[in-house]
């Protein structure tokens, strides 16, 4: 679509401005992204933990599944309130369009909410013990992992499948946010295990969080490389603070605290810092098109 060169005498006002429009997504969508990560991450880590090591995590998941459900309600509330017409939120279920990340995400969250509710009820309600019921419970948890994972995965792909500056070039944004979701889930499980006084679970989750923090940072490098020009365009002062909070507070500091030793206060601080860093990262990602336009 290129023209033959014309000796352009002056710049165009339109050439220097942005072509695209930033969507009306602000802090509420950042919170939605955070709650989505916390709910799905917690459910996935709790499920994997219970299915793999029921001897260690059965006690922790009594709090984990209901907490995941509450976080999911918070996520859905943010999603509905962010709509231009919240009373039409149910229109999202009018079509099933897997080619649209948002449609796929809505359906996955809807299906996941059914499983999350079922598992939370199975956890909270007094259900008689029996091998059949235990297997049924494991089956529900296992199947529920699929929509939970998809609900975790769709968010980053939604952002990168757009025309917005920074997002449109970020091929690893989905990979990074998905990994970050599992890091958040592990941090939340650590908080719950500490609160419930399950030392075996705490010890295991501390090691898991160290490994996941390191692995979860791996997609960050290609992501930052892909969007380096847009990152450079964003305000340097703000970027330094955001980068410091995201990586320093959200990854490096918790790693140091976790490796420093096995103390409740250090573990609690590390888990909370992971959550803070996770939110700051999500806020910066959501607000990037506004900063760049």
């Amino acid at each position, binding site marked *: *679509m*290129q023209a*033959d060169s*014309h000796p*352009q*005498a*002056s710049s*165009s*006002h*339109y*050439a220097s401005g942005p*072509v*695209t*429009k*930033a*969507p*009306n*997504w602000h802090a509420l969508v950042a919170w939605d992204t955070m709650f989505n990560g916390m709910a799905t991450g917690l459910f*996935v880590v709790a499920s*994997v*933990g219970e299915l*793999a*090591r029921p001897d260690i995590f059965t006690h922790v998941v009594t709090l984990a599944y209901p907490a995941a459900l509450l976080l999911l309600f918070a996520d859905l509330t943010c999603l509905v309130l962010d*709509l*231009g*017409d919240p009373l*039409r939120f*149910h*229109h*999202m279920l*009018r*079509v099933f*369009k897997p*080619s*649209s*990340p*948002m449609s796929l995400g*809505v359906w996955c969250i809807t299906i996941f909410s059914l499983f999350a509710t079922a598992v939370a009820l199975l956890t909270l309600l007094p259900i008689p013990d029996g091998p059949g019921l235990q297997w049924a419970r494991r089956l529900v948890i296992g199947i529920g992992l699929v929509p939970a*994972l998809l609900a*975790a*995965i769709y968010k*980053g*792909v939604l952002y*990168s*499948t*757009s*025309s917005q500056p920074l997002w*449109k070039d970020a091929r690893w944004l*989905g*990979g990074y946010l*998905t*990994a970050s979701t*599992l890091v958040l889930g592990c941090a939340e499980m650590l908080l719950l295990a500490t609160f419930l006084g399950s030392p075996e679970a705490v010890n*295991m989750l501390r*090691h*898991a969080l160290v*490994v*996941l923090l390191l*692995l979860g940072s791996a*997609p960050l490098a290609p992501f930052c490389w892909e969007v380096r020009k847009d990152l450079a365009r964003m305000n340097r002062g703000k970027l330094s603070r955001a980068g410091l909070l995201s990586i320093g507070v959200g990854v490096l500091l918790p790693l140091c605290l976790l490796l420093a030793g096995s103390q409740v206060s250090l573990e609690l601080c590390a888990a909370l810092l992971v959550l803070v860093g996770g939110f700051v990262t999500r806020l910066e990602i959501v607000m990037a098109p506004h900063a760049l336009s």
Partner: protein
Amino acid sequence: MATAETRLAETPQTGEMPPAGGSPSLLNRLLKPFRRGVPPAPRRATGFYTDTTVCIGCKACEVACKQWNQLPADGLEWTGNSYDNTGALSATSWRHVKFIEQFPLDGSAAAADPEGPERDGARLSLDLLPDVPTPGRWLMMSDVCKHCATAPCQQACPTGALLHTEFTNVYIQPDICNGCAYCIASCPFGVITRASFDGHAHKCTLCYDRQRDGLVPACAKACPTQSIQFGPIDELRQRAQQRVEELHKRGVPSAYLYGDKPTAQYSPLHSFYLLIDSPSVYGLPENPVNPWVHMLGDYARSVVSALVMIAALLIVLYLGSH
């Protein structure tokens, strides 16, 4: 307006009225969006061809569009950008005339009028235009929704509000849209906006209502120079190609068509343009990319990330017991 159009405008809207009362109204509100009608039979694809070389910047298209679609006024805010005080396409401005002034910024103008207005660090005098040695020019263009053959906004829409009509134009069903704004994020041309007055996305409908009654869209009807031409898209492309060839013969080698043909990363546009400068000069993307080109790869990377993290978690959980 012609008599036929006057009568049409006075015709009351037909359609079901929602039942009175609280509960029936709520039920209707919940169920109505899920009802499906019979889609109309496909018809010949229509669109716009805009010849920017004959646009005079009169803004009749903006006025006609606002009048026909009963769009509210946007107020008056001086943008300082030539005669463009609309600023951009929006939920209440579905046509936007752009003015691009291209005049020399060399020393000749600066020396002649040192007290003239400053622009881009050099002084540019508007009083001395006739005497400026190198003539400048003024580009004008009526921007509108591109009605892409494969529209990212339509691909994005999770409610099915955005669809292609029987004329292959992109249309937002105003009773379905819930204002999620994903179409806004997806559009590479910055066309769609969410209205503050109802929270829904709005854009050019290519006068779907007028087309269904056999009429020409309001903007094309109003355009005094036939810069905006409406008709079957294949005919428009032929006409546009002939115009380009004519301009080339008449000493405008920079004339070309933007959006008439598909590229490697984007479909053709059903509202395409004849331009004589780079697309970016007109505020158009040089090489638009359909975001869906990358979607599957993005999903794959996310799935791999998830599986690697879960595998690592399982390894730690099993190693922990030993």
